[in-house]
């Protein structure tokens, strides 16, 4: 017969359960796939349980849980980084998606080209685009633009100086714009520029 959980374990379980969907959604956006997201959440639950006795604000653990999960994501990322090609970010600063859509005109018969472009992106595609961002910027971009955390909160979550977070957001936004365009071209959601020429 199984032992009943201790008070601490039961309290932890009660605290964590309402946040499982949120944690999994965040892990999914960070890692880009469901299997890895589940692993990140499992790591986070174990890590959070070990740190639980020291947690002071148990009524509102959202920010703390976000920090634990983000830290677990970084841990897994570190072991994978060697496999990933590091892309040059030199051109990001000069890319403007709004202007690119006007210049390339992928929907020649539309009078709402920018909205048509946005409509190309369903949930699965959004996750793929986020997953293609450089890991250096992905966390800040997802926390800010998916979950609405302020730069100061992201600084707390990632333990990075505020200036670093603002710089990551700035570069990350540019990479996000470029990735949206390149994803649409790669997936043939819009005609390839050479085909249109």
């Amino acid at each position, binding site marked *: 017969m199984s032992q009943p959980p201790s008070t601490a*374990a039961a309290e*932890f379980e009660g605290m964590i359960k309402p946040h499982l969907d949120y944690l999994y959604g965040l892990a999914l956006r960070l890692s880009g796939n469901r299997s890895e997201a*589940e692993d990140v959440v*499992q790591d986070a639950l*174990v890590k959070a349980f070990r740190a639980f006795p020291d947690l002071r604000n148990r009524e509102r653990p959202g920010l703390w849980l976000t920090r634990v999960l983000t830290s677990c994501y970084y841990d897994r990322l570190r072991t994978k980084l060697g496999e990933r090609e590091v892309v040059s970010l030199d051109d990001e600063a000069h890319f403007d*998606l*709004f202007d690119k859509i006007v210049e390339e005109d992928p929907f020649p018969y539309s009078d709402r080209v920018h909205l048509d472009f*946005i409509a190309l992106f369903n949930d699965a595609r*959004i996750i793929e685009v986020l997953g293609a961002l450089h890991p250096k910027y992905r966390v800040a971009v997802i926390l*800010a633009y998916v979950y609405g955390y302020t730069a100061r909160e992201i600084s707390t979550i990632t333990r990075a100086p505020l200036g670093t977070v603002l710089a990551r957001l700035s570069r990350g936004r540019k990479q996000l714009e470029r990735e949206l365009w390149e994803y649409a071209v790669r997936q043939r959601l819009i005609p390839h520029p050479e085909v249109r020429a």
Partner: protein
Amino acid sequence: MITCKEAVERLWEYLDRNLLRLEQDELDEHLGVCRHCCGELEFAERIREMFRRPIGPELSPETRMRLDTLLRGLERQ
């Protein structure tokens, strides 16, 4: 008045409310006369809305069950 390039560089921070008062005033002045940058601002808002949209059922029943099992076994880890 600031240029379109300068205005566009500030749009997301404007939406994040991260601009200094002077930077915001300069951008407001520019947006008051520039239709192109107003279009850029609206587009940036739509892009942000797209990313904030909730994505599907987050946890499948199978995954939830595995996490529940993990939670119940945490004390033994």
